């Protein structure tokens, strides 16, 4: 230890290692698995897979997003998501009770859910301020306990719509069909449906994608990346010169990445005559053997993006910044005159309210409101998703949400079909895909939780 630090022999290798540790080894493995699954997806399944993956991303996105305020305010991932979900379910039930349909029905459900979840969030925040340092454990028990209590609640609530209550006896149904009400209300806005008949062909511009990826990485490596330099042992002029060239280099890099993106987009999608040949050469061609179709739930995805944007904006606001400070360094925030408990309250309340909205987005796409024990299953997947996305239990960004939900839900959607293809011989009474789905889900959750340190954790 006492000897001088050795000069690395191969600095490129060291830098690559640094990049990998920045990405986070766990995230890298999951991402590679994701790419592997993409490659394994059989040609015939492509349209179906795309619709499934996008739908599931939209369904779970807001629930993953609700982890952001809770992590940033220092509560850790919100393990009390089921608690917030109860508010969402109540909101949905109110809309159904008054026979509201379509987007209006969904909007009413969301507003009701927000109104109900606000005091619940405050209650949760109050509780979290009482149990500092064991937030995650207490939140888990609290969420589970509230779901159990609501099991009684569902039996007693005075809803009268026949769609909600059992036809005989008291109480509400296990699942409530949203199809006649606001099922798919979001999904249907601007939804893109594309049908393919047997014999139709489809071109996937894989080649263009690969070119774009490779060129972008090279540009990043050459121009944008921050180099490993010895700040303290550099001469002033050297540092000044370095910083000057760095700024210019970065600018060049960003402009070239933007350029190559535009070029690739044109190459892949633009309808210009002489490009067709190139595109065709760079694409994988699929000829369908049977009728199939692809659906893109535009409305739901746009809703997710809007939610993410709002959250991003909040993170840049004065309150958002003070909340993050209270979360990442309470002592420092206190010295700046910030009321830590208030910030934690804000984080908890936002998280609970978002999870209430999240379940409604989920339910409208799924087509059913699920009561009783169903909320329990919604707790761990969003946490696993954001952790895989690169968040830690102390830091979370919007990028972590998006990367996490794409990787997690993508793998969950593609994994079982592909594995099922190889396991189909085993199916005996039980659907092998379902077994595999359970194994993969829990596997990823476990893996994500062991990597709770997040991307680029300090060494």
């Amino acid at each position, binding site marked *: 230890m006492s000897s001088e630090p050795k000069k690395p022999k191969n600095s490129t290798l060291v830098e690559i290692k640094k990049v990998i540790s920045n990405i986070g080894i766990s995230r890298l493995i999951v991402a590679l698995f994701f790419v592997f699954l993409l490659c394994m997806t059989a040609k015939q399944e492509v349209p179906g897979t795309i619709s499934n993956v996008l739908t599931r991303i939209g369904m779970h996105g807001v629930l993953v997003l609700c982890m952001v305020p809770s992590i940033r305010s220092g509560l850790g991932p919100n393990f009390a998501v089921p608690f917030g979900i109860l508010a969402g379910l109540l909101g949905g039930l109110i809309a159904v009770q008054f026979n509201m349909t379509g987007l209006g029905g969904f909007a009413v459900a969301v507003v009701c859910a927000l109104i109900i979840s606000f005091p619940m969030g405050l209650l949760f925040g109050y509780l979290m301020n009482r149990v500092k340092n064991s937030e995650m454990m207490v939140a888990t028990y609290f969420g589970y306990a509230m779901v159990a209590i609501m099991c009684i609640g569902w039996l007693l609530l005075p809803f009268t719509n026949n769609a909600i209550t059992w036809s005989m006896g008291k109480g509400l149904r296990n699942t409530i069909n949203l199809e006649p009400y606001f099922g798919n209300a979001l999904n249907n806005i601007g939804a893109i449906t594309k049908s393919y008949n047997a014999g139709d062909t489809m071109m996937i511009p894989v080649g263009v994608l690969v070119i774009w990826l490779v060129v972008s990485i090279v540009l990043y490596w050459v121009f944008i990346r*921050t180099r490993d330099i010895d700040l303290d042992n550099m001469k002033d002029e050297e540092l000044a010169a370095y*910083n000057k060239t760095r700024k210019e280099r970065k600018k060049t890099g960003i402009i070239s990445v933007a350029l190559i993106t535009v070029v690739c987009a044109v190459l892949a999608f633009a309808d210009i005559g002489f490009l067709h040949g190139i595109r065709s050469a760079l694409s994988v061609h699929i000829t369908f053997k049977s009728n199939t179709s692809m659906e893109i739930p535009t409305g739901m995805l746009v809703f997710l993006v809007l939610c993410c944007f709002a959250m991003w904006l909040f993170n840049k606001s004065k309150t958002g910044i003070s909340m993050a400070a209270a979360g990442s360094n309470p002592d*420092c925030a206190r010295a700046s005159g910030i009321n830590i408990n208030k910030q934690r309250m804000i984080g908890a309340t936002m998280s609970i309210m978002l999870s209430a909205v999240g379940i409604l987005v989920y339910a409208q796409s799924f087509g059913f409101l699920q009561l009783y024990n169903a909320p329990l299953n919604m707790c761990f997947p969003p946490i696993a998703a954001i952790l895989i996305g690169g968040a830690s239990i102390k830091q979370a960004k919007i990028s972590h949400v998006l990367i996490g939900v794409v990787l997690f839900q993508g793998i969950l959607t593609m994994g079982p079909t592909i594995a099922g293809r190889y396991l189909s011989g085993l199916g005996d009474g039980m659907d092998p895909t379902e077994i595999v789905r359970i194994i993969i889900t829990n596997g990823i959750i476990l893996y994500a939780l062991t990597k709770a340190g997040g991307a680029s954790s300090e060494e």
Partner: protein
Amino acid sequence: MGDAYVLQMKNIGKEYSGNPVLKGIDLKVKPGEIHALLGENGAGKSTLMNVLFGMPVIHNTGGYTGEICLDGEKVHISSPKHAMDLGIGMVHQEFMLIPGFAVYENLKLNREVTKPNAVSRVAGKSYESLDNGQMRADTKEALDKVGMDLDTDEMVGELPVGHMQFLEIAREIDKKGVRILVFDEPTAVLNETEASRLLESMKRLAGMGIAIIFITHRLQEVIDVCDTVTILRDGSLVTNCQVKDTDAVQLAEMMVGRNVSYSDISGRVDKFDDSDIVLEFRNFSVDMPGEQVKNIDLKVRRGEIIGIGGLAGQGKLGIPNGAMGLYPASGELLYEGKALPLNHTKKILEKGISFLSEDRKKIGLILSESIEDNMVFNAMQIKREYLFDFKLFSFRNNKKIAEFADQMIHEFDIRCVGRKQQVQNLSGGNQQKVCLAKALALNPKVLFVSEPTRGIDIGAKKLVLDKLKELSWNQGITIILVSSELMELRSICDRIVIVCGGKVADILSPREDDAKFGLAMAGTKAEKEAEKTS
């Protein structure tokens, strides 16, 4: 003659990665002698004791030079266990006792007296049963030696703090063959009566032929009980002498003296007087663990740089932390003649009082955030600056933030690859500059600065101090500078307050004699004055 010494440390040297921290130290102790080891914080006392105890921190960093002789025999002490076997004991400053155990159990912990039983005859020595009677008897004996009358069965957790120190000593005595005992500031946590009892028992132990090395900051105690004294300063030996040949003033001078050249002192001694007071502490107490402030009264004059010095643990850090509301404070704090709400950080910051914390990693900065975000954080939260302010929803104004950050990076010469770099990747000195920029972003009228140069390199040190001076001289900001480096205080302050035991010991001009500073730090000023008047 040399054989008469029980311990001789000859020409001890030690360096940590090239920085010499001990240079040619000699120390000799005779049996039955109480030997004082004096020096400021960081003078090298602890390192010297670590060498004596063969602490791993010494051996892991390249060992030491020079030699240690016990009873005239050269030894190489390789580990604390080895030191113990050689009969060297240590009474720690922090108590190493288990509250839930009885007195005798603590005393005999891991050295239990056991007697064989049926099981142990088969299963081995570790199954022997405890001989509680013998252990109680041993404990009683050891406690008697220290002069302590205590029930051996009492729980340690229920004892007053003062008694714990005696238990620690009794435990060392109880170890067989103790020849040398080191007391590391044992009186720091004791009240006066307890301290005098401790000194009594030290004398008694010395009477039994045990050599005692007594580390303390209280010069009066040295005069009272010690026979010989060794003074260290900046890792060098100042003197070995007989206590009877000297007095407290001389000792203080030797402890602090650095032959300050007067050109280094820039204080504007006569410029300020009590007619314009910006901040006034009245009967001000702070409950900061380890840095208690007890009922101080202090007036800060507008525009001056007032230094607060003193030894570690005497309460100097408590003053800024209490004033800013980071630790519970009581009493009165007047700003511009009006009482400030105590313990309400936000309101205090809003008044234009800013703080540069001594703990920049924990309190000063958010390490995972960027340079620019750290710099404007307080200004944004307190003064709503650097924002697009829509009252209810206010968003960060990236352009203004960037302007300010770039200006500060340039002005302070912060070494970074850009304002968006995370502060955790900066060196200590550059982090401190970010902290200073953060405090200045608030445009403070009064600035508390706590240990601004701790753990930063010389270049950054100079820059930070020069900047502080400039702020006060050119911009009229009142600065309250807390530092454990007296040199630093004397170089830029206009007045220096020395605190001791949580109280103001003395207020001195930076041009005052070394001895006065030394005496004030050792808390002997009051006694001296009492002598004069009587």
